[in-house]
């Protein structure tokens, strides 16, 4: 097994682990971290593909690398947004979980300003 295949398999395993964590963990911060593990797996896969798609003899295909950089920026912003929401939620309800029962539905005062 060469290193590219290994990277590809590791990426696939990370996607699987992240997906499992995102679905099963009730703690919201763990969900966010799981999303990052999943994203990391996808980026690793991109790396393996860049290496494999190297047909022109230039060492590595640059396109997947450009995509990975954009992907990292997007995943970073997503994580920042999710953590900001989680912190705010934690301050409001006092714990980082979705309550078993929904809180009150849409506000009585919706639309009144």
């Amino acid at each position, binding site marked *: 097994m060469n290193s590219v295949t290994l990277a590809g398999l590791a990426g696939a395993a990370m996607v699987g682990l992240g997906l499992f964590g995102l679905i099963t963990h009730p703690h919201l911060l763990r969900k*966010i971290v799981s*999303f990052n593990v999943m994203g990391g797996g996808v980026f690793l896969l991109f790396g393996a593909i860049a290496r494999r*798609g190297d047909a022109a003899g230039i060492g590595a295909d640059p*396109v997947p690398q450009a995509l990975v950089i*954009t992907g990292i920026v997007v995943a970073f912003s997503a994580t920042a947004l999710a953590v900001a929401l989680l912190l705010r939620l934690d301050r409001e309800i006092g714990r980082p979980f979705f309550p078993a029962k929904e809180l009150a539905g*849409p506000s009585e005062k919706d*639309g009144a300003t």
Partner: protein
Amino acid sequence: MSAASASFLLPSIIILPIAAMLLAFFLGGRRAMQIALIASPLGLALASGIAFVVWQIDQPLVYVIGGWAPPLGVALRADGFSAVMLVTTALIIALTGCFALGLFGTKEKPEKRAPFTFWMLLLSVWAALNGVFLGWDLFNCYVGLEMLTFAAVPLVCLDGRAATLMAALRYLLFALLGSALYLLGAALLYGAYGALDIGLLSARIRSEPAAWVALAAMTAGLLAKTALFPLHLWLPPAHAGAPPPASAMLSALVVKASFFLVVRLWLNLAPSEMAESVAQILAAMGAAAIIVGSVLALRQARLKLLIAYSTVAQIGYLFLIFPLALGAHPWVASAWVGGALQAVSHAFAKAAMFLSAGLITQALGHDRIAEFRGLGRKAAPAVLAFGLGGVSLMGLPPSGGFAAKWLLLTASIESGHWTWALVIAVGGLLTAGYVYRVIAPALAPEEVPSPTSAAHVSLSGAALALALALSAIMLFFVPPEFSNFLLAGAPGAIAKLVR
């Protein structure tokens, strides 16, 4: 105007809202609203321009960014369906923007943060939608989708209450799961075929394991973002909790963007033998969405939740087009046009209903359907707009919803798919049921006439909701040429058949 010189319209309609957003960000609070209000008619003009050119040249309008042709560069492409979605988006953004003037006016001092954020997000949602509707490169579409998510999620929790924060976070987690799966699929497709351009990929892709895994991951991700049953759990609290103009944009437009990409994947990109085996599954999920969403809407005690569940149901109709619009059959054109009309008429009707729900909540101070007696007298224009939107949703003639559902119905009967025809009919009845549940008490007289007969309903707001509802109705009267326009650049088999 030649097609080549007109193609600059495509990047312009993405640049305009982004430039407006950046300008609003730098000029700060009070200017944000004015900039959004100036940008929206300009954007509507650009969208109409694109639609006009596509109609004139009768084929897709393509712009190759920087002159670098795919696979090195990225292309933007507007076919009939994208042009129609662009115009719909621009219209709804402009009308909900005007509606939001009262709610998120930035005139008062001291300056507040929510209005400023709202106008920035409005412009971002609009830019992202335009990007997705014009995207012809899978990764470009990914960036558009992500931008859309990041703009849509904060719209849900503008008021910062715990319930809406929770709805927003749940929405974000579903959307992030979706985007990771979409990106995984795009990576696999690039690895297998060395391209991300939809046109190039559709020529290279074959029915093999790599393509199956990639398309399955991307579709699952997009379905989570579209809230197709059974991935709809995030939608009702998110759409019902947002402020009315935000709900209108989310329900009318944002869920359509990921649906649009599902269409791109299965009708433009995938080989037809793959699409045919998946189409039935997509349609079955759509059918389940119609039934479950409508039944849940019937059971809601709150108006905004009822409308949100109705979105879950109406999304289902969109997915019925997949088995009907495939292959070289005489009915594919009506299925394609019916699907597009459903997307557009639902957008107008649903925006009208959410805006009128906002007005009703404002008039009564609550949105409990059980206490709606006498509403027809207190807030007549809002009830009228809600009812007209409902007429289109349930598919009564004359309305855009009727035209859409009639086309889908005839396509499913002609193709022998009786199950889908039955689901469309039952869905229409259930829709009539939940609209009736709101209208009937609203028109009933109050048991004890209240002294305040005319509650405060913003007339301009009601006029905007009515304009949206009437647009949904007027879609019934579109000339037959509109179908030909929608078929400009439609996926291979559909377009070939008609010409």
